[in-house]
């Protein structure tokens, strides 16, 4: 396999896909661990005899717009271990069902679990090429390693390379970014930190909101410190100079301040004042309500009509 793709495609991966694959793997693993006979793991073609050998397979769906491939969702597939292929009829049936609910999504590729892509995966990859000319292959490593900092996900594309004079399709790694829509990000945050769904007091809501921002800024700070330490190490001569990295750092610094135009200031202050206005009106509403209560209590206490 080559080290990196040169297709120029940008891959965006949604967290739902990651959680979907994780759920698929854990479910099949727990069934396998509880089962007493090998035949009961029919969901995966009856292949693995132990949880350690387990691989699950599925399809990736999403949208491709120009050079951007956005993987929104996934569904499980049936793997036939005897022919080392995916059940085509099942795939088509599932695709038909998903099209009814998500008509804009197309099959972009497939996924599997494991340490890395296998040579035999090329067979499955090629079989999907008549659905998508250039399918994507996502591999998730389900081994929990607490020392790792990066997501154990690799995305592969196929490229035609001439090896020993023979043109062959090989899988090459591609970079990807995590993309979330606002609602997805909120629900990920909700389950990641297991927040209660009830309102809580105003103080609790404020604390939750500010904690989220604080954590994000803390991450930003730690990233900046890493860059700073690298630059100091380069200056001391402890680390080799990387001109590309230095150019990126310089470019980042020159982008600050991010926005400093009069238009931005006007819009920012407008939002600021709108919020203050709403707060002011809410305060007045509260005062009116309290005043009304006082009047009623006064009337009740000194009511001459009873």
């Amino acid at each position: 396999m080559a080290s990196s793709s040169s297709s120029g495609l940008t891959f965006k991966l949604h967290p739902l896909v990651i959680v979907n694959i994780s759920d698929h793997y854990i479910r099949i693993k727990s069934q396998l661990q509880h089962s007493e006979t090998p035949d009961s793991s029919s969901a995966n073609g009856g292949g693995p005899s132990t949880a350690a050998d387990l691989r699950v397979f599925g399809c990736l769906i999403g949208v491709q717009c120009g050079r951007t491939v956005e993987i929104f969702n996934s569904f499980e597939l049936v793997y036939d271990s005897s022919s080392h292929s995916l059940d085509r009829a099942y795939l088509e049936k599932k695709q038909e069902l998903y099209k009814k609910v998500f008509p804009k999504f197309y099959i972009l590729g497939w996924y599997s679990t494991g340490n890395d892509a296998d040579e035999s995966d090329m067979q499955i990859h090629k079989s999907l090429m008549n659905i998508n000319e250039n399918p994507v292959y996502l591999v998730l490593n389900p081994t929990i390693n607490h020392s790792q900092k990066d997501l154990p996900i690799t995305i592969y594309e196929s490229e035609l390379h001439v090896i020993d004079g023979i043109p062959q399709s090989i899988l090459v790694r591609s970079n990807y970014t995590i993309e979330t829509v606002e609602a997805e990000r909120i629900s990920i945050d909700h389950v990641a930190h297991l927040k209660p769904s009830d309102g809580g007091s105003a103080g609790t809501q404020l604390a939750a909101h500010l904690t989220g921002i604080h954590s994000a800024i803390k991450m930003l700070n730690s990233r900046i410190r890493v860059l700073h330490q690298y630059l100091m190490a380069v200056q001391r001569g402890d680390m080799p100079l990387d001109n590309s990295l230095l150019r990126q750092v310089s470019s980042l610094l020159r982008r600050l301040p991010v926005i400093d135009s009069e238009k931005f200031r006007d819009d920012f202050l407008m939002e600021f004042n709108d919020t203050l206005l709403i707060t002011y009106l809410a305060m007045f509403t509260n005062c009116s309500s309290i005043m009304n209560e006082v009047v009623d209590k006064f009337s009740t206490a000194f009511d001459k009509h009873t």
Partner: protein
Amino acid sequence: TDAIYFYDEAGQAQVQQEKPWANDPHFFHKVRISALALLKMVAHARSGGTIEIMGVMQGKIDGDTFIVMDAYALPVEGTETRVNAQADAYEYMVDYSQTNKQTGRLENLVGWYHSHPGYGCWLSGIDVSTQMLNQQYQDPFFALVIDPTRTVSAGKVDIGAFRTYRQGYKPPDEPLSEYQTIPLNKIEDFGVHCKQYYSLDITYFKSSLDCHLLDLLWNKYWVNTLSSNPLLGSRDYVSGQISDLAEKLEQAENQMAHLRLGSFLMPSHRKKDEESQLTKITRDSSKIAVEQVHGLMSQVIKDSLFNSVCP
């Protein structure tokens, strides 16, 4: 942690035979939702925009708890337009369940979910009728409501789970559930049916691999947290809320005017109704203000972080 992912077919069949919920209309108290199911439902609800979407949930029963393992969308929209909208999708549900069983998803349906974009998590008259029908023929079954608009506006998932009482059953007085803002055009529908159902406590669970991946995911999506802007994202919703608030104020003021004129003849309890309406309006206005202030706080923090740096 991962034992919950195993589906005990024999155990579930036994529970279905025993039917402990048949004689106790208040049998179920809790719902446990998997991270995957929540993510799928919220994403589906948001994708519908202002249209009410619908789906079903698969899972199992554990004592008085529904455990939701997965959820899938149905090709049905506008759930508030007719009772039992999911009847349009029975064929789809049968096909989907069959395909699910082939991949080892053995759980049965335990409930249905739908969205109330912008008007809160409660059951309307149509929802109550639908759920009563479901409980009559598909029990154990529960209803879940998600408000994707309020989710984005408030920055937390707005969700509610409910079970209806059977026809003719008079529920005991329950402590008031958490207050939520109901738009003026929905208040009557809410008030008429609010005693016909009760809410279930919702908790969430995730697998060990989910925990690990979500921790690592934070290393990527912290950027999205920092770059989100709730002030711009829910502008239309906030405008709608403020308009609704103004209309409620008008109504409260009209009632106050009538009260003043008829205070000699009106019984005293009428004053309490009008007071509580103003108190509710105050709470609604505070909620709007708090959400706006939260959004503004993020913007001010980001402005001082990224725009106050001199090169």
